[in-house]
């Protein structure tokens, strides 16, 4: 009476499986709630044609022609002037740091030349590290000047009147790899570091060695460092491999200081391994640790500016993105590698990463259960 398929047996298996599914509360909640949260979050946050990108205006003479150019640019929907009266130096720092995506420079003789009917130029420098960000904004430029001046001067386009010069800074050829490869370093480090250390304590608990470890004289700080420091070495190997590949295989320029990059990477990896450790102090099983890691991983990919332009997201999503170490690391590595930013320029990112290290370490030490309670 051996049949290949028995409904009774299948039923027994299904019943058992669904009971187990319901018992594992965390998994069950994650299966139901997480897709919904992510759908809403990403659905509203992600925008592949970013608009209202931050821009700085360098215009020594703020005359009516300048103003009409600015309002014409804003009317395209792509530009939002957050620094309408910047000096050239300040604007340079802002674009290097990634605070603005564009710097619009209107020369001081712009108005005079228009009035005289001489050809005039304005300069738009676009941060082209992410080629997709700049392209939309640049594509509208051809019609902007004409319409702006038509309205202002009341004349039909003064024959070859205004030329808009576009500089695609940092990545003039618009090579996607320049943007993606340095960022991949962050993503790869995040995946391995957080996942490995998130198992650190749950593995001890599951194998029953935690009880023994706790019965011996080791302090929570020692246990944490003992767990996370070995992964710094793994991280170091990854860093070397990715940076070499970026240079040799993908030809990504390394303009800034290598020491600064390595310093930033060290802070980032420290933040990650300690974050993983925090996860392992709140998880009961390795399975849970994995789930929490992935729950953290996906939004950080989406909202950090890795997959989609950070500046293209709505303000609330940008604020949310700030809670991920990856966001700050991407800013830092892109600024330093591609734009040659110095330590002062990326000081905010360095400070943010340092803050993550300290906050995560504090959380880990507070969460660590010195007893089996």
């Amino acid at each position, binding site marked *: 009476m051996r049949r290949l398929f028995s409904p009774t047996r299948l039923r027994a298996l299904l019943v058992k499986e669904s009971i187990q599914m319901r018992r594992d509360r965390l998994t069950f909640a994650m299966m139901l709630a997480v897709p919904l949260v992510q759908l809403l979050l990403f659905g509203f946050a992600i925008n592949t044609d970013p608009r209202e990108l931050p821009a700085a205006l360098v215009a020594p003479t703020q005359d009516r022609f300048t103003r009409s150019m600015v309002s014409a640019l804003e009317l395209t929907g792509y530009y939002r002037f957050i620094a309408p009266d910047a000096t050239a130096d300040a604007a340079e720092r802002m674009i290097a740091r990634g605070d603005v995506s564009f710097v619009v420079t209107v020369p001081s003789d712009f108005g005079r030349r228009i009035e005289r009917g001489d050809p005039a130029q304005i300069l738009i420098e676009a941060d082209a590290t992410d080629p997709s960000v700049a392209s939309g904004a640049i594509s509208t430029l051809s019609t902007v000047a004409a319409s702006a001046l038509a309205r202002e001067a009341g004349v039909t386009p003064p024959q070859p009147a205004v030329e808009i010069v576009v500089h695609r800074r940092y990545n003039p050829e618009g090579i996607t790899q320049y943007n993606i490869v340095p960022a991949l370093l962050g993503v790869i480090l995040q995946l391995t570091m957080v996942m490995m250390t998130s198992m650190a304590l749950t593995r001890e608990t599951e*194998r*029953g*060695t*935690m*009880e*023994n470890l*706790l*019965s*011996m*004289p*080791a*302090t929570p700080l020692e246990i944490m460092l003992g767990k996370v420091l070995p992964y710094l070495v793994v991280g170091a190997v990854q860093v070397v491999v990715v940076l070499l590949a970026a240079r040799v295989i993908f030809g990504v320029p390394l303009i800034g200081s290598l020491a600064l990059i390595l310093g930033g990477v060290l802070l980032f990896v420290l933040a990650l391994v300690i974050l993983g450790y925090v996860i392992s102090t709140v998880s009961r099983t390795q399975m849970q640790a994995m789930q929490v890691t992935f729950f953290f991983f996906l939004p950080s990919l989406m909202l950090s500016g890795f997959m989609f332009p950070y500046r293209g997201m709505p303000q609330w999503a940008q604020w949310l993105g700030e809670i991920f170490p990856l966001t700050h690391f991407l800013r830092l590595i892109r600024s330093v590698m591609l734009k040659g930013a110095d330590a002062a320029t990326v000081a905010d990112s360095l400070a943010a990463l340092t803050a993550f290290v300290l906050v995560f370490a504090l959380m880990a030490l507070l969460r660590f259960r*010195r*007893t*089996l*309670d």
Partner: protein
Amino acid sequence: MSDPAISVTGLTKRFGTRTVVDDVTLEVAKGEILGFLGPNGSGKTTTIRMMCGLLEPDEGKGQVLGLDILRQRNAIKRRVGYMTQKFSFYEDLTIEENLRFVAGLYGMKPARAVVRDTLADLGLTTRKGQLAGSLSGGWKQRLALAACVMHKPDLLMLDEPTAGVDPKARREFWDEIHRLAVGGLTVLVSTHYMDEAERCHRIAYISYGKLIAQGTVGEVVRDAALTTMVLTGPRVAEAAQQLRGASGVDQVAPFGNTLHVVGRDGAALRATVAIVAEATGCRAEASETSLEDVFIQLMGQATDNMA
């Protein structure tokens, strides 16, 4: 007499609404081997964990080696050796690596020499490179014990150390425990085995979280005040059937061809047994009450708070 090694009063531990350890008061003298007995789930492990600083008691207080169990957990950890019920060294480390790890955590110096001596004592020098996970149950137990006493603790807590270990290894294990106790070490060992209980200086019996008997084996048996009769004959199975639930009979347990009958009311038991023995043609005689009889009796009397 000097201060006791363990002196705890009113230890209580609750997990949710369930009281797992209920008002346990216990004293263990220095150099004494105390057997900690009780059925599964009676709170033995929880009590031990509270005393070695791994769990925080909800109520109660006490001292271990003169150190406060609530406030001086770290100091206690340095002077206590705790052997967990389940093998809890690293199975993916070799024997030597495990010992090195322990030596390092306790800051033993010179670690290399301590580990070498321990390996030699264990007779594992030639197998030091073997993964701990590949050892048999008996060897794992010996390794765990060696690792627990390597830092020369003043108190050893062993949680069911001989579960799943063969009789010869158990015998050797107990010989070792006695050797250590002679050297001044205090030992608290939990067990299910009656023969092991009899090798302890004193025993404490815990059931459903409550400590219900303690003393030497003789004292515990005497305090239980049970009467035991042994029946022999060809029809003991029939006799057993008649005796179960009969007046004065609390326990009926076949042992091979004999039948042990135990009861609290001696006179009633003797009367009942005499009648049944007569009817079934068995021979009945008085016998010593064993520790096991006492424990079965205690288990039956304790109120079940797990239901």
